[in-house]
């Protein structure tokens, strides 16, 4: 077994870790293909596929027409026929034309064919606000996909998880929506092993140990919640911060175990509150840890409006202040 010192790591941003993960899999498996708008020569709108076309050729890293339904439909066909396509949506908010392909085909072919065919494809999609993008570019519509049995939904919040989760997603026999938090793309660097490794899908992570309240977040909101948790140390409020990492299927054990310990929970997400994944987390708490609750579960979420134009986006997105307020409310109920 190798120790940490033997593992060669690089300091990478989250988007570089995505590139690294793609490169690792393109090298290892010939059946892995990358396709999307401008992913080839241009290296993708966020440079996530930078250099891959040069290294692996346009037959494996290919530009497509501006037609999301076509990209996903093509990927489904490739996946059924033995390839492992990784399709890129330039922004998650652009996925809507492809929704029909995902909902009625990608997520169902396994059950429709009684497991004779599965669809081992990944849809990568940058998502979320905070980068002052125009309309639709900032949508956080993950719950459209968590409500789709047959489809896994994965959201890394840091470079290490981004590479490990992406490799696990590409290796998964079923379709995975891989959401990349745009605001975290270049926000910080972390040690990412050079070699291939995976982070198990369906497992969340406990980022900080705490006693008083469990704070549950994913993607962009993990770093925002971390700021709130750090601020509250001065008030002697000890928070346990969970990064869900996979939104479908949820890591119920992790959520239940933590809430049973702390007796309180605050769920943070940037998608609108109504119909959000926060409600599913709440349902897990209700089913698994009800008799341990000391206060009503709090939710800090986006508002029930379309994501606003950028002058208002800081008002829309949960802030550390909103989260600390909710945590205090939970703790002092």
């Amino acid at each position: 077994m190798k120790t940490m010192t033997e593992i060669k790591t690089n300091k990478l941003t989250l988007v570089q870790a995505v590139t690294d993960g793609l490169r690792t899999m393109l090298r290892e498996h010939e059946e892995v293909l990358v396709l999307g708008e401008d992913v080839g020569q241009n290296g993708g709108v966020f440079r996530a596929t930078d250099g891959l076309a040069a290294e692996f050729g346009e037959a494996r890293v290919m530009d497509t027409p501006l037609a999301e339904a076509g990209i996903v439909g093509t990927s489904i066909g490739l996946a059924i026929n033995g390839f492992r396509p990784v399709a890129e949506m330039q922004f998650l908010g652009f996925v809507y034309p492809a929704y029909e392909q995902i909902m009625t085909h990608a997520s169902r072919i396994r059950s429709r064919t009684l497991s004779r065919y599965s669809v081992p494809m990944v849809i990568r999609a940058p998502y979320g606000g905070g980068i002052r993008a125009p309309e639709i570019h900032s949508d956080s519509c993950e719950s459209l996909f968590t409500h789709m049995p047959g489809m896994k939904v994965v959201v890394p919040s840091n470079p290490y998880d981004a590479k490990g989760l992406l490799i696990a997603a590409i290796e998964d026999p079923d379709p995975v929506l891989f959401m990349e938090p745009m605001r975290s793309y270049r926000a910080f660097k972390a040690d990412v092993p050079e070699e291939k490794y995976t982070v198990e899908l369906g497992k969340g992570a406990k980022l900080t140990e705490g006693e008083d309240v469990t704070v549950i977040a994913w993607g962009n909101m993990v770093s925002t919640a971390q700021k709130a948790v750090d601020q509250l140390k001065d008030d002697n409020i000890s928070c346990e911060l969970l990064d869900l990492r996979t939104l479908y299927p949820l890591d119920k054990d992790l959520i239940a175990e933590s809430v049973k310990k702390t007796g309180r929970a605050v769920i943070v997400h940037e998608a609108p509150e109504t119909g959000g994944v926060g409600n599913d987390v709440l349902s897990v708490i209700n089913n698994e840890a009800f008799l341990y609750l000391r206060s009503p579960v709090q939710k800090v979420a986006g508002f029930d409006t379309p994501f606003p134009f950028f002058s208002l986006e800081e008002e829309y997105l949960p802030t550390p202040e909103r989260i600390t307020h909710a945590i205090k409310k939970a703790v002092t109920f």
Partner: protein
Amino acid sequence: MVEVKLHDVGEGMTEGEITQYLVSVGDSVKVDQPLVEVQTDKVSAELPSPVAGTVKAIKAEVGEVVTVGTTVIVLEKAGSREEQQSGAGKRAQVKSDMRKEQTSFKMRIEKSRPAEGTGRVLATPYTRRIALENNIDIEQVKGTGPAGRVTDEDVYAYRDQKDSSVPEEPEQREKEQQVTGHLPAVYETPESNMIPYRGRRKQIGKKMSHSLKTIPHVTHFDEVDLTNLIRLRDELKEETGSAPGAAAFFIKALAIALKDYPVFNAVLHEEKEQIELKKEYNIGLAADTEDGLIVPVVHHTERLSIAEIHTEIKRVLNLAKENNLTKKELSGGTFTVSNVGPLGSIGATPVINEPETALIAFHKTKKMPVVRNDEIVIRSMMNLSMSFDHRVADGAAAVAFTNRFAQLIENPAKMMLEMV
């Protein structure tokens, strides 16, 4: 909309437990059709429908204890404006009505939450778990948190207070510790069964413990020779084919003895500093039924003959057995009799039926050697136990009273002379 509220169906009742609904949402109902069955502290009563219409909502769950004045069912009157409205407008109306009612229902519950701890209490699930694990009925705990919420500390304080204030038999204590120390065992062990402590059982419990807590009970024991009474009853049977039961004779004798010692046919009004001597001699009969103890009353025993008392006893006991006693038969008692002799008892310390002053229990009659005129003879002897409120009367009066009773019952011929 017509709200059917729990009203006072018995004497001074404050709450009742919903035992079953006789209609469902959407049912059409007629005027006076029974809607719901409610168990009060004395009777199981049906609430009838005040109007003809449709059941719109059921507001309380089966098993829930609701206070008087709480809306139990919402009806839509037949031919009402609401019923004529159609489509979405109607639905919206119903919805908004329901919301309004739910809010006021909730407010009423919160407002009516009694200090002594019946009804629903506010508490977080965590606090409820602590109560559960400590085998504490959280509804008995007084909350000190926001809006009267029961906090963890309240539950712990209640537990500690309970532990220190109730002296228990060591065995009982051990049993309890097994329960509280490792609560899940109660639920996990397939051998143990849980009996809900609700309805009549709970009412009896509350009444008994209140009586014992507030009244200084003293129990006086005596024995009575029933040989002559038994002989008289045998003679009557021979002549007429039937005879009133012994209980009818006892009650008649009590009615006479109580006139001489009215302090035992009395109600103490402590706050007014008065003892009210009742003019009626209404004797309650502690009756054992499938649902537990209930006390129907034979009214005006001073005006009834022994035969009439016998008929009345039979009537009310039958009603009690069938759970059909009305408010009239359950109220107005001035003195209570517990005739446990037929069950085989030889002694007891009966608990006074508040607000009465005394209660007498008659035990098994058995043939015994006794001394009469310096000779040992066989007589039919019966023990009696009389509990009385020591605030109202003293032991000497109780002894005199039972002596008077014995004198009457031991000489039935003499008793005839004193009957009205």
